[in-house]
Structures are given as C-alpha cells and as structure tokens.
C-alpha cells in the first residue's frame, strides 16, 4: 500500500493478470464467465416490494456467485436499500422468490439470515465505539469459560479469535486489540466488520456503501479487503453509487433505477461512460 495513489483510482491488488495500465485499473483484466451449471449462493427471482402507495421494487432479479463480486449500482431512491433489507431478512418481499444455494428460502428475520451465512455490513452500524477491537469482533459470539451459571468471558481466546479474524482478511492491525471503537477509522471499521463476518462463517457478504464517506486511501484498503474476501470464496454483493469503485473490483454489475433493473453487465462489457449514460437516461 505504499505506492502513490491517484485520487480517483483505488489501489489494486498486485495480481499477475491484473497489472494493466488502463485509465481505471481493474482487479482482473479478464473476467471468467460464470461456469454453466454453477448455483448462485443467493438468487433473487422477480422480487417486488411496495410500501403503501409507493412501489419500491418491481420484478428485480439478481444472482450472486461464490468468488464473484456483484456491484449493485443506482442513485438514491433506486431501491438499493430496500433490496438489501429483503436479502438480509429485515422484511419479506411482496412477490418473487429468494433462493439460497439453489433452494427457496423465506428469511423471517435478520437472525435467520445470519445463521444461514448471510452477513450484512451496514455503513454506520459497524462498531460499538467504547468497546475494544476484540470485544467488537466477538460481539454476539463471545467465547466463554467456566460451567453452569458461572460462565465468564474467555478474554484470551477472544483476543486470539480477533487476531486470526483480522489475519484471515489480511488486515494489518498495528495498534493494540484493546483500542476502542472510537479510535478506529471509518475504513478500518468496514474491514473489521468484513473480517468478523467471514471469521464467523459467512458465505454471502452484503456490503452497504462500504466506501462512501471514506478518504481515497482508506476506500482503497477496504476495496482491497473486499477482493481478498472474494478470493476466499465469498459471494459479495457490493452496494455503491461510486461507479469507479464498482468498475475496479466488481465481476458483475447490476444497475437499479426507480425500483427496476435497468441493466446487467459483466464488468468487462461496460465502462464508466456507458454506466453514466445509462443512469442519466433512466434514473
């Protein structure tokens, strides 16, 4: 991460095939087509949702595959957040089906989604500000020791879990694990949340605007960690309105506009101009 950064250009992982020199460096030049017969980790099939008189989503379909990043692009009000709330079990769709690993599922609540391995990282909900890094990472799944009613936090084990979670995602954590959430930068919070989700066995990562409100350098680090997650076999749905970020890491791009799918592309089939045009036209 020491190379100079172009403000508009997120840094990319050093990959043999990805060492191109385009205007916008992409994580990998050629994108393999989805192998025939591959089962998407998550498939939304003709989903629709309305709130009273307003229609939020109409006939939206998408597929997220293991080891691929699907970027969900769209302006404010395009229906992105409604869609991720459906995918993470916050509320059910009015019509259409969700399929998880090829099977129809009904997600009754966020806990059920989480148990199936669907981890949603919300932009501003990543950390508790006065808990340590360790306590934040193990929150909700704290290791305990003792027996019967006399159970205590196993703080040593918790530290080990936190360390290996961060290590797994390649997050370099140079400060202590007792650092409080308030001293963790926005980018580090996102990375920490991704590390936490993967460590506890997610197979689908839904990331809600992970790079908005971040400085360029931090955004680059977060994108880097998203690529690592993908390489370790996570299916990633990346919600963003930053076209450049989407184009630099995504394998597939779905554009939402006014609650409908306005277009679906493989990353190498489109470019910044085409996407900008599309959104300007339909949004």
């Amino acid at each position, binding site marked *: 991460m020491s190379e100079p950064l172009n403000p508009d250009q997120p840094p990319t992982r050093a990959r043999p095939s990805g060492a191109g020199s385009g205007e916008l460096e992409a994580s990998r030049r050629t994108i393999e087509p989805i192998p025939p017969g591959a089962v998407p980790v998550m498939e939304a099939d003709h989903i629709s949702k309305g709130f009273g008189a307003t229609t939020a989503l109409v006939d939206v379909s998408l597929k997220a595959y293991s080891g691929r990043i699907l970027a969900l692009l769209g302006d404010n009000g395009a229906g992105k957040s409604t869609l991720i709330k459906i995918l993470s079990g916050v509320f059910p769709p009015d019509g259409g089906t969700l399929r998880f690993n090829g099977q129809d599922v009904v997600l009754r609540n966020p806990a059920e989604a989480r148990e199936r391995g669907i981890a949603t990282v919300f932009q501003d909900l990543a*950390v*508790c500000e006065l*808990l340590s890094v360790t306590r934040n990472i193990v*929150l909700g799944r704290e290791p305990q020791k003792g027996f019967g009613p006399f159970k205590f936090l196993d703080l040593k084990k918790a530290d080990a879990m936190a360390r290996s979670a961060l290590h797994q995602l390649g997050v370099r954590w140079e400060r*202590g694990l007792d650092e*409080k959430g308030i001293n963790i930068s926005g980018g580090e919070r996102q990375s920490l949340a991704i590390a936490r989700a993967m460590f506890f066995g997610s197979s689908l990562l839904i990331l809600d605007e992970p790079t908005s409100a971040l400085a360029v350098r931090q955004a680059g680090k977060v994108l880097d960690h998203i690529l690592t997650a993908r390489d370790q076999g996570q299916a990633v749905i990346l919600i963003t309105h930053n076209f450049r970020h989407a184009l630099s890491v995504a394998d597939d791009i779905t554009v939402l506009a006014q609650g409908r799918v306005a277009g679906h592309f493989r990353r190498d089939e489109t470019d910044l101009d085409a996407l900008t045009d599309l959104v300007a036209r339909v949004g």
Partner: protein
Amino acid sequence: MTNEPASGVARTVPSRRIVYGEALRRFMLRPESTAIAAVLILFVVFTILSPALFPTKLTYISIMAIASELGILSIGVTLLMIGGHFDLSVGAVLGLTSYVCVVLMRDFGLSPVIAAPVAVAVGALLGGLNGYVVVRFRIHSFVVTLGTMLIWRGVLIALTGGFPMTVDIPVVFKNVMSGPLIFGFRMSMVWFFAITLLATILLTRSRLGNWIQARGQNENAARNLGVPVDRVTIILFVLTSALAAVAGIIQVARFSSVDALRGEGMELQAVAVTVIGGTLLSGGYGSVVGTMLGAITFGMIQVGLVLAGAPGHFFRTLTGVIVVGAVILNTDVARRMARSKPLGGFKRSSAAADAAIQAGAAAEKGEAG
C-alpha cells in the same frame, strides 16, 4: 492503578515527575475519580465543620447504613443506565416490595426466609413488566417507568391507607440483613460490597456485560450482530427492580416497618449517585465501583450536614451542587483531559479517555441539534 505507569513506559525511562503527572492524568480520566474526589473533599470539609463528631466510628456506621441501602438500589440503576435505559420506578418498587414482605410476615405469618424471596420475585416481576412494555411497544423507558412509578406508588398508598405498618421480625433475620457486625458496621454493608463485586464481574467479565455495554453504545449494531438486545433490556429491568426489592427488605429489617412513602425520591437519588459515580447519562459506559463511591458520597452529605447542624433543606441543595459539579467534571473536564496528550512516552489508549471524548461528542451533537 499503581502499576499502570510502569507498564506504559517506553524505551526511555521518563522522569519521576512525568510518571506521577501521567498517573494523575489517567486517574482523572477514570469514571470513579470524581466520586473519590468528592468523598475526600467532603470528608475534609465535614471534619473541619464538626471535628468532634464527624471523624468517629459511629458516623462511619451511619454513613454506610445509608450508602448501602441506596447503593444496592443504585447498582441496578447503573447497569440499566449503561444499557441505555432509565428506571424511575425503582423507588415505588422498593416501597411496594417492602409492603409485600411486611404483609407476608405480619398477616400471613410467613417466615422471612419465604417472605423475602417472594418480595424479590415480585420486584423481578414488576421489572419484567417495565422491560416488556419498553421492548414490545418501543416506548422510551423514561416514560414507561414514570408511569409505573405513579401506578405502584398509588397502589401502595391505597393498600396501606397511608398509615405505617409495623411488623415483628425474627432477630436472626434482622441481624443477617442489617444487624451489627463485629466492628459495629451493619450487615447491609457486606451485602452492598458483595453486590458491587458481583455487578462489576457481570459488567466487565461476562457475555451479558458485553451485551449491556453494546446495547448502550450502539443498539442497532448489537442487534445486527445477533445480540438479543430486547432480552438484554428485559433482564436489566428485572435485575434493577429485584435489587430495589433487596434494598427494600434491608430497610424493612432495619425499621421493622413499611409506610406509604417508603422509597419515594430514591429513584432520583439513584440517578444522582450513578452520575456522580461517572456513568454516562447517555449510556454505554460506566462503573459500578463509581456508583458505590457515589452512594458513600450521598451518605456523607446526609450525615455530615446533620452533625454540622445545618438546616434540613441544605441536604437537597448541596446534593444538587455536587451532582452538577460531578457531571461537569465527568464530561467537560474529562473530555479536555482525554484530548490532552499523554505525557512523554505513554500510550494513548484508555477506556476512560475514549468515553470522555464520546460524551463530549454526544453533548456537542445535542447542542447542534
């Protein structure tokens, strides 16, 4: 506390002055520092005001009797406040559960060994009701418990007819709850210290404690990570009211009676004690040990003013001054200290510093909004 500077020493050994300075700076950042300062200052002031009467064992015993009862009640309120809630009904719950305890012994002839646990169970039930309403209807706990405070107080006045009720309590039970110890202190002090210790372990060394802090800091993040925040809320209310009942039983053992106004005003005293103890009003951070010291502060004011011959109403005024002073120290001064640089070669990270910064940020947000 004592070995903290030593562990933070960097490669070069700082001078003794810097070590002491940094130790002082860190002490000031602890949530308990205000309460310790209050205890020390009040001790000196009251000793000067009544040198013959104040620094005596009898005085300490009276202070601890008051502090123990209020402190046990306040520990529940502290945990609840760290979890991000308020409970204004604890005073009324204390009164009503005391009534239950007295009636079971007097009118039903039950042994206190049965009556006391039943009273605690009734307290837990009343707390559970508070928690259920807060969770089910998503109403702010301040409003819910304001309502239940009025309801339970009304019920208690109706049941007692406004008259005090006395009861004969077996000496053994009296002694176990509030009797004199070998050194003359009351048993209630032992319960107080034991509950302080247990609550501290719960808060800092248990999963539930982690969840309580997370609930108070970022409810949505906690929920999103699978923390059963609603269950945590209900447990906290149950615990708070059960501890109110314990305090009530100790008072019943001490006075052998209950009256319609038992516990009235203690809900606000508990908030004052908690705040003096360094717990953030906004939740998420606090100290049970601080609350213990806050309760002792309270006891000192109450006893010290009587000994100094001050008029009765002075008590409220002085308490008010100390509460406001404590809040200023705990937020404003601590925030400035937290932003100040650690003295040469020490590490920055400190829970109290972070809390002070966050409290300041919350206050600024409040002013802006």
